[in-house]
């Protein structure tokens, strides 16, 4: 930046920069559009790369220490997605009976039942047991930690994920009402049976943050006067009355198992898959994740290819712009030659202009990315349980940007060599 400061530009590099900058400013409209087109393509490239990497990491972080996940028979991916990532829905429930039988297996160290299907202002509600807070692990074997309060005890207690508490501004002791079904626009509310916030979890960067946790009894209680998805007014049961009923669940959505020994995993998996009384499926989260990666990796490659092609298109656009400007710049080249500029100076000038355009494009792209990653972070977290970090600078990004500059240089060879060739010949325009 020193060359900007000194007024008497005499250094050769300072001169070159000055001429290149003035030349670009002189064509600011076309240059601006070119910068924008390059910025957009770099934005897409880096954005896709960042989300891709972060998605992998985020998915991988979501569950750890769970040996098997069991649900009604479906694809292992579907089970993984709805039980852990809260994406999609269970096709079928499993009976409490089956859960109890399998949880009692000798190989099982702990079992966490999961009951999904309700929501609160767009966040999903999960019925579970207190064991969830004790045994569930995410990241590298991190347990869930309470930011304030403690696990639910009473039927109408609720424990909030960090994001839920923060976004909806809930404090311990506050009351809230669950909605029947999913989605923000659910109109049927369980407003006769409000829940009280008794605990708020620390942020985990996993879908736990987006979840409201209640006891299975709580889930049972709010549905006690419901049948087939509708409340039956004729047999309305108040919250107090509900507590008098037997609140043992009849069904749950899925459950997670921790085993005493990893050796037993496959044996138990087979046993569950062959379970006689109900069609069940048991999955290994790691294996299901691997399948997910495989599915994603094709998509990733396609996305990467598309964004590279977009970048190539805009770099070619830039070369076209520079090449098209050569005609009108011919007098300028003659003048430069007449005052003693070497053909190399003219070659370097064109290359420098191209590189300045790319650098400007990179700067715009990085600023736009900084702004939008924050937005994207919220959106992806809320809708897909994907947690991406705001910090997208990494060695890979540096490498990609270097690649962009190298590609810029290479493609700008076309106009630069054209200018070089012209400048070696005589100054025709004066003859």
């Amino acid at each position: 930046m020193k060359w900007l400061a000194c007024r008497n530009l005499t250094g050769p590099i300072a001169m070159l920069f000055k001429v290149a900058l003035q030349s670009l400013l002189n064509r600011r409209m076309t240059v601006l559009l070119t910068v924008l087109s390059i910025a957009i393509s770099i934005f897409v490239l880096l954005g896709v790369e960042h989300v891709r990497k972060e998605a992998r990491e985020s998915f991988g972080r979501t569950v750890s220490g769970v040996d098997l996940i069991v649900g009604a028979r479906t694809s292992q991916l579907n089970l993984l997605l709805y039980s852990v990532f809260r994406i999609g829905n269970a096709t079928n429930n499993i009976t409490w009976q089956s859960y109890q039988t399998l949880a009692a297996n000798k190989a099982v160290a702990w079992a966490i039942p999961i009951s999904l299907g309700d929501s609160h202002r767009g966040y999903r509600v999960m019925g579970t047991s207190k064991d969830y807070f004790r045994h569930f692990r995410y990241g590298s074997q991190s347990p869930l930690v309470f930011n304030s309060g403690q696990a639910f005890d009473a039927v109408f207690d609720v424990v909030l994920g960090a994001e839920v508490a923060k976004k909806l501004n809930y404090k311990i002791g506050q009351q809230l009402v669950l909605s029947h079904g999913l989605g923000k626009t659910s109109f049927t509310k369980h407003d006769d049976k409000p829940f009280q916030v008794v605990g708020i979890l620390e942020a985990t960067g996993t879908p736990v943050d987006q979840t409201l946790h209640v006891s299975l009894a709580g889930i049972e209680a709010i549905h006690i006067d419901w049948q087939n998805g509708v409340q039956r007014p004729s047999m309305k049961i108040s919250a107090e009355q509900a507590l008098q009923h037997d609140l043992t669940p009849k069904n749950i959505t899925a459950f997670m198992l921790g085993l005493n020994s990893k050796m037993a995993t496959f044996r138990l998996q087979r046993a569950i898959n062959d379970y006689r009384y109900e069609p069940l499926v048991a999955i290994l989260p790691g294996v299901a994740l691997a399948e997910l990666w495989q599915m994603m990796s094709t998509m990733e490659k396609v996305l990467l290819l598309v964004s590279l092609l977009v970048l190539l298109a805009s770099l070619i656009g830039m070369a076209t712009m520079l090449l098209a400007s050569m005609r009108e710049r011919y007098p300028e080249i003659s003048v430069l030659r007449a005052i003693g500029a070497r053909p190399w100076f003219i070659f370097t000038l064109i290359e420098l202009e191209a590189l300045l355009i790319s650098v400007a494009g990179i700067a715009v792209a990085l600023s736009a990315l900084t702004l939008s990653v924050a937005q994207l972070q919220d959106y992806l977290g809320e809708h897909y349980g994907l947690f991406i970090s705001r910090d997208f600078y990494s060695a890979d990004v540096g490498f990609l940007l270097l690649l962009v500059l190298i590609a810029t240089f290479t493609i700008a060879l076309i106009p630069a060599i054209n200018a070089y060739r012209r400048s070696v010949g005589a100054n025709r325009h004066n003859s």
Partner: protein
Amino acid sequence: MVQSNAMTQPETVLELEDVCFSYTNCQPVLSIPDWQVRAGQQLFLHGPSGCGKTTLLNLLTGMLTPSHGSIRLLNETLTSLSGSQRDRFRAHHIGVVFQQFNLISYLSVADNIRLAAHFGKRRSKNIDQDTASLLEQLQMPTRLLKQRADNLSVGQQQRVAIARALINHPEILVVDEPTSALDEAAGEAFMKLLLSLSRANNSTLLFVSHDHRLAADFDEMVSLPELNRANSHAV
């Protein structure tokens, strides 16, 4: 302004020997067996359009190289120099003024002149001072220095071109039909300034035009077709 020219001024500043040039392989445009120009002369070179005047000037400034023959300028054999040596030689010793488009349109007048000084390797700190004094001699207000070159009138641009060509105190000034874009009054004023400034600078002046009316104040008049042995195809 004279001191930098104090380098041993040879009696003949320019010497062509057996020079032949053709653009394509076929017919030569120029073929000059022998031609000399003495130092400090103001020379008017004329000839019909297409006879090779601009081509000759491009040979003299080293922008083109002859097919054979030798060109000596200021004791330097131009024809044996490499491309970049010729570029450096041009930057240091020759000032050029074209018919039009003499300035880089998007740079300020001051930067246009500074750029020429830069290539001329004038590391002097008084470039700005010299520029101002040149502009004054060319009867132009110094406030124009900050203007973009293409904001100036054509006449003003041509006068800036003289300043630009003289900033490095070149021994040789090469001027190619500089007045064709000017009206008569502006053309006359331009000629007066050019001649007096080149004389003050002790430069040898090679001036090309087909307009004989401009020849009045020159030391010598040379007709290119008479010099040129190539069976010229003057239009």
